[in-house]
């Protein structure tokens, strides 16, 4: 479903990705690991069209993403749920409104928005906190609001970049368990994490990057 074909990404004089070829199947859950600076974020950014490959092809759902331009980019991103290391919540509005944002963009009826937002907050264990401001939550809770926002529109693919980067081990394990739960109901999950101790305990494919090259986990 997602296929990197000899993808390279070059920044000025630095190769962030070199000749990366990789397949990720529908409904698979994979971890992307490697030291800081290995190119994990760059791969995810290419997938989200936040950046474009210097060479090679990235094919998603049979479509070369290089052909996705202009207004289509926003539409393309709506098929993904994205979880950020720094959660990217908006503190000028309630938890409810934060989680509702993707539904507003997609154009759901307010009645359905309420139902879905509560369902998503229920999944991450924050039902009942809708009207609070996300600023009053702990780091782990904020990350869970971020996850609720990522899944509220039922994306086919959930992408997370270091979602546990700022959390202690206990909370990190909880967050990973949450991703596994989404994987079990058929969502394709891609998680970038350098926390090898944590991800090697979970039995999913681990793709390893080193200085922009794939060094492990290419096959299954």
């Amino acid at each position, binding site marked *: 479903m997602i296929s990197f074909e000899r993808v390279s990404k070059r920044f000025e004089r630095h190769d962030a990705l070199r000749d990366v070829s990789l397949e990720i199947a529908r409904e698979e859950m994979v971890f992307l690991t490697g030291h800081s600076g290995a190119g994990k974020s760059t791969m995810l950014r290419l997938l*989200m069209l*936040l950046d474009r490959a210097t060479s090679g092809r990235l094919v998603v759902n049979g479509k070369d993403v290089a052909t996705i331009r202009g*207004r289509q980019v*926003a*539409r*393309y*991103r*709506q*098929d*993904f749920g*994205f979880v*950020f290391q720094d959660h*990217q919540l*908006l503190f*000028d509005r309630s938890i409810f409104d934060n989680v509702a*944002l*993707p*539904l*507003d*963009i*997609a*154009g*759901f*009826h*307010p009645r*359905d928005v309420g*139902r*879905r937002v509560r*369902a998503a907050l*229920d*999944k*991450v*264990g924050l039902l009942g906190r809708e009207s609070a401001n996300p600023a009053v939550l702990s780091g782990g809770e904020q990350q869970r609001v971020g996850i609720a*926002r*990522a899944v509220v529109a039922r994306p086919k693919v959930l992408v997370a970049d270091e979602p546990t980067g700022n959390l202690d081990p206990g909370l990190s394990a*909880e967050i990973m*368990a*949450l991703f596994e*739960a*989404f994987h*079990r*109901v058929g969502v394709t999950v891609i998680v970038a994490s350098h926390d090898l101790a944590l991800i090697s305990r979970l039995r999913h494919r681990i793709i390893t990057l080193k200085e922009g090259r794939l060094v492990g986990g290419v096959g299954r």
Partner: protein
Amino acid sequence: MNATVPDAQVGPRPALVSWFDHHRRAAVQSFLRLWREPIQSLVTCLAVGVALALPAALWALLQNVEAVSGSVQTAARFTLLLDQNTPFEVATQLAAELEGQANIDDVETVDRADALKDFAYGIGLNELMDNLDENPLPHLLHLHPDKNLSSAELDALFISLSTLESVDQVVFDTQWQARLGAAIATARRLTAGVGVLMVLGAALILGNTIRLGIEARREEITVIKLIGGGDGFARRPLLYSGLWSGAVGGLLGAVLVALLFGFLAGPADELFTLYGSDQTVSGLGFKGAFGLTVAGGLAGLVSAWSTAFIHLRRIQPR
């Protein structure tokens, strides 16, 4: 934590329905946002109001001048200078004849002695009369044409009066009317020019406010783009805040003009009376105030759109 909580399988609504719905909500929320920072909003709207009030006041003033000049014009007067040796009896007889014409309202006969007195008094030289051996003036007729005559009919009347026997000269000062007309045309151009400049100024003020608004909402816009919102979605609240600030500014401008005209009314009405007009000074009126509000709203919309067009694409998620 359960990833399988069931709920109704509902999807997004048709694009047009949700588009309208988002417009409606963006409109309401942007309007409410104005009151969240009331001082800042008031300053912006007042700046727009002041910018729009100046050309609007000029325009309203011009409307008044034109209305008055219209009524002064109908009070046009011919002065008939009779031949030097025409006796006074002939003059009064001619006056009576002319008064019988349908296109003439009223004729007043002035004895040459009185005419000289009036003239001397008018230029402030009473002793002039003592120094003149002979009165140089003939008897005069002041003739008021019918108020409804067109300028072509006035011209025709002028010609027929000139050809009358015992009439030496007909004086019909149309020059001041031509001058006034030219002055009004100039003032109208000036108003249009000032209007364009001031609307541009208002648009720039609003554009700057919108730009600050974009900066303040950079985070929100970034997140919107990250999770699949397009420029249109991000732009909508900005467009409405431009529209509302502009419209409220226009309305404030109308209030300013009303205050200004209230301030002018006393002396202006007197001025009108002195010009023989029974008119009173009138401001923008409801239509004008509405027009100014719409103009402000449009200026706000256009400036918000262009500002958003320039600045939104620069905000790309990292």
